[in-house]
Structure formats: C-alpha cells, structure tokens
C-alpha cells in the first residue's frame, strides 16, 4: 500500500516512541510510589499508583509489540511476527481497556472522594462547633459556680451581720408566728424576761408576756390595722412575776392577702429610764412645791411675827390675870408651832448649806443619833438591830443636818411601829458605784402602794394631827439631795436580807463617796 512514501521515519518514531513510553510509564510508577509512601492513607495516590502500573502494562504490551515487530521485520522474520501479532494486539487491547476503565472510574472516584471529603469536613466543622459549644458550656458552668460561691459568701456575710445584730443586741428582739406564739427571741430578751434558755420562751403565746390584757389587744389591733407600731409602752411579765417596762417597736408580717402572719419586734427595757424619770419628776415636783412653799412662808412670816409680838406684849400686860395669861400662853405656843413649820419649809426650799461640810463616818453619825433616840424607842419596846459594815469610807456631809435626817427616819420608824417591833439599821458601801448606803427599816405597818409615791411631798402625812407636820421627809429629801445623794423607799423591801429580817418598810439613804482621786 503506500509505496510512494519512505516508511523509515515512521518506523523510527514508532520504535523510539514505544521506548520512551515505557520509560515515562516507569517514571510515573516511581513518582506515584513516592507519593503513596508519603501519604499511605491517600486513596488518590493509591489510585494513581495502580493507574501508572496499568499504564506500564499498557506501554509494555504495546511498545514490546511494536519494537518486536520492527526487529523481526527488519531481521527478515515477518512470519514470526505474523504468529505473535494477534497475541500482542490482544494483550495490548486488554491493557488499553484496563487503562480506559481506570481513567473513567477516576472521575467517579474523584466525585466520591470529594463527597467523602466534604462530609468529613462538615463532620470536622460540626465537631469543632461541638467542641466550642462544650467549651462555652464549661466556661458558663465555671462562671456560674464562681457566682454561686460569691453569692453564698455574700449571703453568709449578710446572715452573720444580722445574726450578730440579733444575738448581740442589748434590746429584746423577737419574732411571732401566725398563732401569736414567740417563734424566736434573742439572748438579751431571754435574760430580760428572767429565763435561762431560749426554748423556755419560744412557743409561748406573746399575749401571756403582756402584764395587761388591754395593752395586748391594743398592740394586736394596731399591728393588724396599721401594720406597725412604734414606741409602744407596755409592761412585760418576767418569769418571777415582776414587771418589766418595755418600749416596743414592731412590724407586722403580712401575706399576699394582707393577713397577719406574725410580727417582728424590738423591745427596749425602760425600767431604769422610768425610775430615773420618776425620780426626776419627783425632784421637779419638790422644787416647784419648794418654791411655792417658800413664797407662802415669806408671806406668812410677817403676820406671824406680828401675832407673836403682840401676844408677848399682852402676856406682859396680863401677868396678874392667870386666866388671860394662860390663854395668851396657848396663842403664843401655837404661833411658835406655826413659826417652826414655816422655818422647816424655808429650810426645805432654800438648799443653803448652813453648816459646814465635813468628812464624817456614817456609822458614828448613826450611833450619835441612836444614843439620843434609842431610849425612847426602847420605852415602847422597840429594839434597834445594827448591821454596820466595817471599814466604810467617810462621806462629806453637814453632820448637823445629817443627824436631822436620821432623827427624822427613826421618828418615822417609831411612828410606823407604834409599840413592839424592830428598827433595823444597815450601813453598806457599794464600791463599784462609790456609794454609801444607809438603810433604816422597820417592822411597822408598811406603806400603802397608793400613797408611797407621795410620801416625800411637803405636807403629806399619814400621822394624826399634832404628830407630824408632813415636812420631815421633804426636808430630809432636800438635805440628802444637797449632799449629792438620794432617798428611796421600798415597802415591802426588795432586798432579801431586809425581808428576812422582817422589815416591812425600808428607807435607803444613798450618799456619794468622794475618793482620794476625786479630790486630787
């Protein structure tokens, strides 16, 4: 067939091309193997490796056939080639088909890989997101824990603060539940009420602590209607039955329907305050009565002096007429009594230190007075029981006026007993208050509660006409006040020692003791 053209270049290209094909395919295998080794997991490289193997098989089958044919034809054995040619061609076609199949499948493989990779990427992203979410959650959790810790600490501090306030308060703080029973109370409250343990008070109906039912209803009504109550003055009953003057400030605890669920309250002990106030009021009363009395005394003095003077003149005129003289004598005597009362009144109101203030022994003073009055007491079968403390410090008083007070006290005790009884005299020193106390008690009739608040008032007397002027205690009160002290009365006495001694009334004269440090 194509006899006109030389075939040599064609054969040469075919020959060397076949050789080159073998060489290139082998190089491709080598490259693919290297890649596979670098990344054994990579399916692509594995695929390429097998593709290049197939290519080598194809190159060999094709190139060997072409080279053999070239050699056999040139060497003059075309018949041999004729025999081999169908096998070479068949093998070549098989290899070609294999390469084609592999090449075609690559596209699908690639797509599958892409999908797998995509999925893997998505999975990885999802995994990452999950990781982030987990980290966030962990962080949030940690933060939450921190906040809980901080809040718990704050709560603990707050609880401690209010607990301390509750426990440490010197005032009574208590809570009540729906049934009106005490649900909690602080130690001060327990102590004030005279109990030892909180459990003794908790559970008690609040109403039973009120000394006065009327006050309880007022308290309850006000809490119910207004929701709070301020500076409400009540008397609480202590365990031993004595009374405690309290000032309550309370708030109601209401539910959503504004029904009373209980109350929380602070109660201040006003017992001491009340005593001081009462004493102050009494002092004030005394001062104003004193001023009034002084005014009256001065006004009375002039006419009294005139009556007395003229009576004395008349007495001189009627010395020879006994009847008139006696009558004038009575007028003079009664006028002198008036004069004494007025003088007493002036003494009470004036607060002048007529005598000298000297350091004196209290026990000595009492003995001096007793040496005068004891005899008259004994005449009525009244005996004196002395309970003097030793080594008492001295007090600075005007001894004359101090004796006047003591005489007064003993006279009152004598009158209270009448006949047959005991007058007890105690002297004590309270070092912590630096106060000296003289107690004069008697086994007499005691003082009615209705009049005990008035016994220091001028002109107040329970004695019969002619026995007392009602000025003794007022004057004594004024004198002791001048000394910087005070007189108190208890009937019956609160001191167990006095009660045991059978005393029904006790006057306490309290005097300040000036220690060396005070006077420098």
């Amino acid at each position: 067939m194509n006899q006109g053209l030389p075939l040599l270049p064609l054969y040469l290209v075919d020959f060397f091309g076949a050789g080159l094909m073998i060489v290139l395919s082998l190089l491709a295998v080598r490259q693919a193997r290297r890649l596979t080794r670098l990344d054994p997991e990579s399916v692509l490289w594995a695929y390429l490796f097998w593709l290049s193997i197939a290519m080598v098989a194809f190159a060999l089958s094709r190139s060997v056939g072409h080279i053999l044919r070239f050699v056999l034809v040139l060497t003059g054995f075309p018949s041999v080639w004729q025999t081999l040619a169908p096998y070479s061609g068949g093998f070549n076609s098989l290899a070609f088909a294999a390469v084609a199949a592999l090449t075609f499948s690559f596209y699908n493989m690639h797509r599958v890989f892409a999908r797998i990779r995509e999925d893997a990427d998505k999975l990885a992203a999802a995994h990452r997101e999950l990781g982030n979410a987990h980290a966030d959650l962990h962080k949030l959790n940690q933060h939450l824990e921190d906040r809980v810790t901080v809040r718990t600490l704050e709560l603990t501090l707050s609880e401690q603060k209010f607990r301390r306030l509750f426990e440490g308060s010197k005032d009574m703080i208590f809570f009540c539940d729906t049934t009106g029973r005490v649900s909690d109370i602080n130690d001060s409250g327990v102590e004030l009420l005279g109990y030892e343990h909180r459990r003794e008070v908790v559970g008690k109906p609040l109403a039973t602590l009120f000394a006065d039912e009327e006050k309880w209803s007022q308290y309850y009504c006000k809490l119910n209607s207004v929701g709070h109550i301020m500076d409400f003055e009540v008397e609480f009953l202590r365990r031993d039955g004595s009374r405690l003057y309290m000032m309550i400030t309370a708030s109601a605890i209401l539910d959503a329907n504004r029904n009373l669920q209980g109350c929380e309250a602070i109660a201040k002990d006003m017992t001491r305050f009340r005593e001081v106030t009462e004493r102050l009021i009494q002092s004030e009363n005394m001062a104003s009565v004193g001023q009034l009395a002084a005014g009256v005394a001065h006004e009375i003095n002039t006419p009294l002096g005139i009556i007395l003077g003229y009576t004395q003149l008349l007495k001189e005129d009627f010395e020879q007429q006994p009847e008139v003289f006696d009558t004038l004598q009575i007028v003079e005597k009664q006028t002198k009594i008036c004069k004494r009362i007025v003088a007493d009144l002036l003494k009470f109101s004036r607060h002048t230190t007529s005598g000298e203030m000297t350091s004196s022994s209290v026990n000595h003073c009492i003995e001096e007075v007793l040496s005068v009055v004891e005899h008259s007491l004994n005449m009525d079968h009244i005996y004196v029981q002395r309970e003097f403390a030793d080594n008492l410090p001295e007090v600075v008083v005007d001894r004359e006026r101090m004796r006047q007070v003591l005489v007064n006290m003993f006279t009152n005790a004598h009158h209270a007993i009448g006949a047959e009884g005991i007058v007890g005299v105690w002297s004590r020193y309270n070092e912590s208050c630096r106060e000296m106390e003289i107690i004069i008690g008697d086994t007499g009739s005691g003082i009615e509660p209705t009049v005990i608040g008035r016994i220091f008032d001028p002109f107040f007397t329970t004695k019969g006409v002619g026995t007392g002027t009602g000025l003794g205690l007022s004057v004594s009160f004024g004198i002791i006040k001048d000394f910087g002290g005070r007189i108190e009365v208890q009937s019956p006495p609160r001191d167990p020692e006095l009660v045991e001694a059978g005393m029904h009334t006790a006057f306490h004269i309290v005097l300040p003791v000036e220690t060396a440090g005070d006077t420098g």
Partner: protein
Amino acid sequence: MATILVLDDVSASGVMVQRILSRKGHLVHAFFDEDEALRFAKSEEVDLAVLDMKLRKMEGVEVLAELRKLQPTIRCIMLTGYPTADSVERALGQGAAAYCVKPVEKQELEETVAAVLADGAAQADLLLR
C-alpha cells in the same frame, strides 16, 4: 434711854416694835414711809434705826445708806423675812450692827437692841478716851 427710829412698810409690825421698845424706856418713832423717816432723821438725832429690808419704794440697805449720810454715827438693826447670805452681807457691809430674821420674838428684839446700844456706848466711850 435712846432715840430709836423704826421703819416698816407694814404698820402693825412697826407699831409692835415701837411698843416693845417703848416699854424698855426708849423714845421710839415708828414710820411706814421711807421719805418721812428720812425727813425725821434730818431734824432729829437718832441713836438706832430698826429697818425692814423690804420697803415700799426702797430697800432697807438704801435707807441705811441715806441715814448714814445724815448721821454717820447712827447704829442699825436690819429685819428681814428673806434671810439670804447675800442680803446679810449687804446689810453688814452698809454698817448694820445686827440682823434679825422675822418673825422676831419680843425677847430676841429686846436683847439685840440692848446689845447694840451697849456696844455703841462702849465704842463711844473708847472714842471719848
């Protein structure tokens, strides 16, 4: 016998003093008004003045000062119903010889007057010597 001037715003009181002292043989002039008393002292010599501390227009101490201007040797007893340390001091400071707290009893007044007059006489004796 001495000439005594009594000044008290309450007439009964002044008259009483006058009567008590007259019985002791003194010549006593009782006044209820400060001006009248001072007018009297201008013309008559007075040995002793018995003055109430509280008068209508003036105080006893002021009257005493006026009397002293008129008669420097006049002696004086003050009477008062308001015995305060301050008034005592003022009275004695003005030269009062004694001081009696009302109501004054007859005997106390007689004794005080006698003592003041005797003391004055003693002083006069001293001056004469």
